[in-house]
């Protein structure tokens, strides 16, 4: 059943689809105002869900999709999902508001921008709300794609395209690995539902597939959350417009990896591999990112590395928290669960202060035209509001009271200090490293926060280096960062607001095993715990941080951007180049551009694979017991057919080759007669006749057949391959016939024979199948025909127009009387006299065939072809102009009306509440005609008739017109 949660996911998609309509609005308002409604409404909705989730009631809804594969669109809203949905919708609202002022509706393709942004929003909501892993994966990849589109939004820039491609490759690579991990989880537990998997964690714990599944899932999480060494895409993603960087590449999308780790913590917690990988990679990323951030001169690059580092911090905390799954003693478990609490709290703090900082950088960029800190400085007095926001954001990031970042940084220190007491998984050896790394990284974090703040806003103002005359940003652009900064302060001063509304439910979702029914985690976040080691660590951070900040311009290790000789980016670039080169080399080996080569692959594959399979399964067999007898007459026709066919490759003139092919066709129609398929025989006869006309018309345009001047090797290859195909077909045909003797299954033909009259009221079973049982196929078939004829029309008209352009205007190219059919026009008096009579006979016969079709041989196809044959005869005997004056029809319109009739007949059945193309029939008594059957199928057949006439005549006339 479709729930409100489903609707919440779909809402942004619907709005994205409606974006073209917004474009048409009078007065061209900025589309951002309408777009902002979606996240705002969602934010309010999700806020209202807090009490429900808080009381421990997860909201769950399912929509069946591919149930046979265990895939259903099931959604759930628990504490963890709720936290993320609030981030997505809340920050989404602010970012859209900000973007209204950032993205100039006159200069930028804002509609496209919002389509991508909404696409992302919906996909991201889908990721955090999906309960089914396959659905989650789908949305996950969609976030990668929308991120790609947004990074490449200014696609005329080479750097943007490079960054977009890089992020796509890395995150999609991880996504695929994650999918494989999901499949392994499915193999272990038999379900894709996260909720059901959580009930089966016992199966996974000792399973041999556990480790591969764990590694693959983590690969997905690490690539998405830009963990070392996959972080290289994030700095390049900064080419995106700043609202995008603030939203996707700092607050939401990059946190999808954290979400995944948190989501799978109950599954894998208590595993040494999980603990070490998550916390280890997290810590490495933390220190690496913070160290790299100091060296950056571009503000956005600095924030990118800062984001990488902060994501590592949260990742490490999630890893430390997962240790609580190992312990059976509740007190110990709770002791280590503090790390998880810190992770969740810091996640929110980071979203808020980093969002504010990104927006500040966007403002600086927007107002000064540069993000290079070497050119910036002294903006404090020019942009006081922006400075205030930046100061709050930077201080929160640096972990200075009284902001939210301080509290979570303290909790982080507590967690790493607690880790020393773990004593499991060789932690006794390594655990003392944890606080050291954490402390060092915090020092760097403090230092770059200061660099960001001081170099931009303090110091000397250098207006000569700026492209624009800086001034304070417009109010609309300031509101979102001010709100974020205010939140950073509120989170710091009143963390209790979050404790039981968001943090506790989220913890309950990440660590469900620790709580008994009705129990809650104790979440108390306080400023002051006395003179604890954490306080001294913070004081040390400030001291050392100031030192690093002061030394930064002077010490080379702190300001050079690293050696170019070896870098991860270099590895990525050269790896990609090698990959491209080698795949091109490989492709060039077999993609030769010659159609013949491709056909040889196809045919050889056919022969080899079919033959091998038939041999392997002992499929070849010959059972001649039930063959039909052969008469001399049949044998003679068959011989004629074979001779004609074999002669075709030897024919040296075009005419002979065409006539021989035609002969084969006529022989085939004779076989249709012999094998009691009157409809086929009629169709084939008329088609052959019309085809010959067509061939003769095309004939004029085609070159003479040259003798194939080719080497023997070429011919021999062709011969061997064709011999193989022919042999294979014969053998398979014979084997199939033998296999059919044992009647492995009931043929459906029996149904058609029995039901043809009772269900469809027709006695010609073939026709009934075409117009009734398989009417939908027929409808699409005539559509194909129509397309083919329009294709021909387009090809010919295209070159006609070219020629017309070459002629001087007004030069006598008579559009109406066309072409060569006139010159083909026969002077044969006998032909003209006989065709005058014959035409009417053929036409009448064609209508007879059409009406007889339901019960006797005939029908729309045959009638239509016959009518076309009559018209072609007319055109040949009297010329095109005469035919046009007698039948003044636009045959393309005839075709279109035929298609329309067929389609409307199909739709008509919906009116009576039955499926598309259901037919009705009745037997009526009419004066003179006697009992007549009236069936809607006849109307459908009329559509077929008109289409066939239209198509055939369009083709013939267009080719005839072409010079």
């Amino acid at each position, binding site marked *: 059943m479709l729930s409100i949660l489903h609707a919440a996911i779909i809402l942004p998609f619907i709005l994205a689809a409606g974006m073209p309509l917004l474009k048409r609005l009078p007065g061209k308002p900025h589309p951002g105002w309408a777009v902002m409604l979606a996240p705002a409404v969602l934010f309010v909705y999700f806020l209202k869900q807090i009490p429900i989730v808080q009381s421990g009631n997860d909201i769950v809804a399912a929509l069946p999709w591919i149930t046979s594969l265990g895939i259903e669109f099931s959604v759930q809203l628990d504490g963890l999902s709720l936290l993320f949905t609030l981030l997505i919708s809340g920050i989404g609202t602010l970012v859209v508001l900000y973007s209204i002022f950032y993205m100039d509706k006159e200069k930028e393709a804002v509609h496209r921008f919002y389509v991508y942004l909404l696409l992302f929003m919906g996909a991201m909501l889908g990721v955090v709300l999906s309960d089914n892993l396959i659905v989650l994966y789908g949305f996950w990849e969609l976030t990668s794609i929308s991120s790609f589109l947004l990074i490449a939004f200014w696609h005329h820039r080479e750097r943007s395209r490079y960054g977009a491609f890089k992020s796509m490759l890395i995150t999609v690579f991880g996504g695929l690995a994650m999918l494989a991990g999901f499949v392994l989880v499915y193999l272990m537990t038999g379900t894709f539902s996260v909720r059901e998997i959580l009930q089966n964690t016992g199966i996974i714990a000792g399973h041999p597939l556990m480790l591969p599944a764990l590694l693959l899932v983590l690969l997905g999480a690490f690539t998405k959350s830009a963990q070392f060494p996959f972080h290289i895409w994030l700095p390049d993603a900064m080419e995106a417009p700043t609202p995008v960087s603030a939203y996707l590449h700092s607050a939401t999308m990059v946190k999808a990896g954290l979400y995944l780790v948190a989501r799978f913590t109950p599954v894998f917690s208590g595993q040494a591999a999980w603990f070490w990988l998550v916390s280890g990679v997290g810590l490495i990323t933390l220190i690496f990112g913070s160290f790299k951030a100091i060296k950056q001169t571009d503000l956005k690059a600095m924030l990118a590395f800062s984001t990488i580092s902060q994501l590592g911090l949260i990742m490490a905390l999630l890893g430390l928290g997962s240790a609580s799954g190992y312990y059976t003693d509740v007190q110990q478990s709770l002791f280590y669960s503090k790390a998880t609490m810190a992770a969740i709290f810091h996640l929110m703090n980071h979203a808020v202060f980093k969002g504010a900082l990104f927006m500040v950088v966007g403002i600086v960029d927007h107002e000064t035209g540069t993000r290079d800190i070497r050119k910036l400085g002294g903006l404090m007095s020019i942009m006081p509001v922006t400075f205030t926001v930046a100061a709050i954001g930077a201080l929160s990031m640096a972990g200075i009271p009284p902001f939210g970042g301080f509290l979570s940084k303290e909790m982080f220190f507590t967690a790493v200090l607690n880790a020393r007491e773990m004593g499991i998984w060789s932690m006794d050896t390594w655990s003392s490293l944890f606080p050291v790394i954490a402390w060092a990284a915090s020092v760097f974090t403090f230092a770059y926060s200061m660099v960001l703040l001081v170099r931009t806003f303090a110091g000397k103002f250098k207006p000569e280096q700026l492209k624009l005359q800086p001034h304070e940003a417009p109010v609309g652009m300031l509101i979102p960062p001010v709100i974020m900064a205010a939140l950073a302060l509120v989170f710091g001063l009143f963390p209790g607001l979050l404790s039981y509304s968001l943090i506790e439910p989220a913890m309950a979702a990440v660590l469900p095993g620790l709580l008994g029914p009705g129990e809650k985690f104790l979440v108390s976040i306080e400023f002051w715990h006395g003179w604890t080691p954490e306080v001294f660590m913070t004081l040390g951070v400030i001291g050392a941080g100031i030192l690093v900040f002061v030394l930064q311009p002077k010490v080379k290790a702190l300001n050079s951007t690293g050696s170019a000789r070896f870098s991860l980016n270099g590895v990525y670039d050269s790896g990609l180049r090698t990959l491209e080169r080698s795949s091109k080399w490989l492709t060039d080996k077999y993609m030769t551009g010659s159609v013949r080569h491709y056909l040889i692959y196809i045919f050889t594959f056919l022969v080899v694979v079919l033959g091998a399979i038939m041999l392997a399964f002992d499929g070849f067999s010959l059972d001649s017991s039930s063959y039909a007898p052969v008469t001399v007459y049949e044998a003679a026709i068959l011989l004629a057919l074979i001779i004609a066919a074999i002669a075709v490759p030897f024919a040296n003139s075009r005419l002979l080759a065409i006539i021989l092919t035609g002969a084969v066709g006529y022989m085939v129609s004779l076989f249709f007669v012999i094998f009691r398929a009157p409809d086929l025989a009629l*169709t084939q006869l008329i088609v052959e006749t019309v085809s010959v006309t067509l061939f003769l018309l095309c004939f004029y345009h085609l070159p003479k057949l040259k003798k194939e001047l080719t080497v023997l090797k070429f011919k021999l290859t062709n011969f061997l391959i064709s011999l193989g195909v022919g042999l294979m077909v014969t053998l398979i045909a*014979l084997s199939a016939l033998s296999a059919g003797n044992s009647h492995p299954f009931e043929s459906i033909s029996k149904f058609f024979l029995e039901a043809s009259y009772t269900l469809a009221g027709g006695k010609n079973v073939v026709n009934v199948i075409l117009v009734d049982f398989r009417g939908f196929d027929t409808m699409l078939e005539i559509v194909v025909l129509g397309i083919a004829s329009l294709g021909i029309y387009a090809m010919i008209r295209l*070159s006609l127009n070219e020629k017309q352009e070459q002629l001087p205007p007004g030069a006598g190219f008579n559009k109406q009387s066309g072409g060569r059919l006139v010159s083909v026009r026969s002077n044969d008096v006998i032909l003209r006299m006989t065709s005058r009579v014959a035409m009417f006979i053929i036409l009448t016969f064609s209508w007879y065939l059409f009406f007889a079709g339901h019960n006797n041989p005939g029908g729309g196809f045959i009638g239509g072809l016959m009518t076309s044959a009559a018209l072609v005869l007319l055109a040949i005997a009297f010329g095109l102009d005469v035919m046009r004056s007698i039948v003044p029809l636009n045959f393309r319109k005839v075709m279109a009306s035929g298609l329309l009739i067929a389609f409307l007949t199909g739709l008509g059945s919906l009116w009576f509440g039955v499926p598309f193309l259901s037919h009705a029939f009745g037997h009526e008594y009419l004066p003179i005609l006697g009992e007549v059957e009236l069936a809607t199928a006849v109307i459908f057949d009329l559509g077929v008739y008109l289409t066939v006439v239209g198509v055939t005549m369009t083709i013939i006339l267009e080719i005839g017109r072409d010079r």
Partner: protein
Amino acid sequence: MELMMSIAVGILFMVGVYLILTRSLLRIILGTSLLTHAVHLLLLTMARLKKGAPPLLGEHASAYTDPVPAALILTSIVISFGVTSFFFVLAYKAYQKLKTDDMEQLRGDEGE
């Protein structure tokens, strides 16, 4: 009969494939035509030959031939007419533009 038909179908396939592998556009088109014929006869043969009256219920026969392959083939005949004419026009338009009907010369070159 079925044996003979199977062999004939095999020969038609052989000639059709041979023609498709040649270099002249016209021969290739004729090859596809022959392949179509071959497929039609194959379908018909697979349903067994001469096992009853035509599938017209007005005949009141005790047995009818299989209507399903007939319906399939009817569709195919008309479609292949459309496709063959399309091929033809494509072929001669290509010839007019590129002044050759040799597939080896029509092959795409590097960078095209």
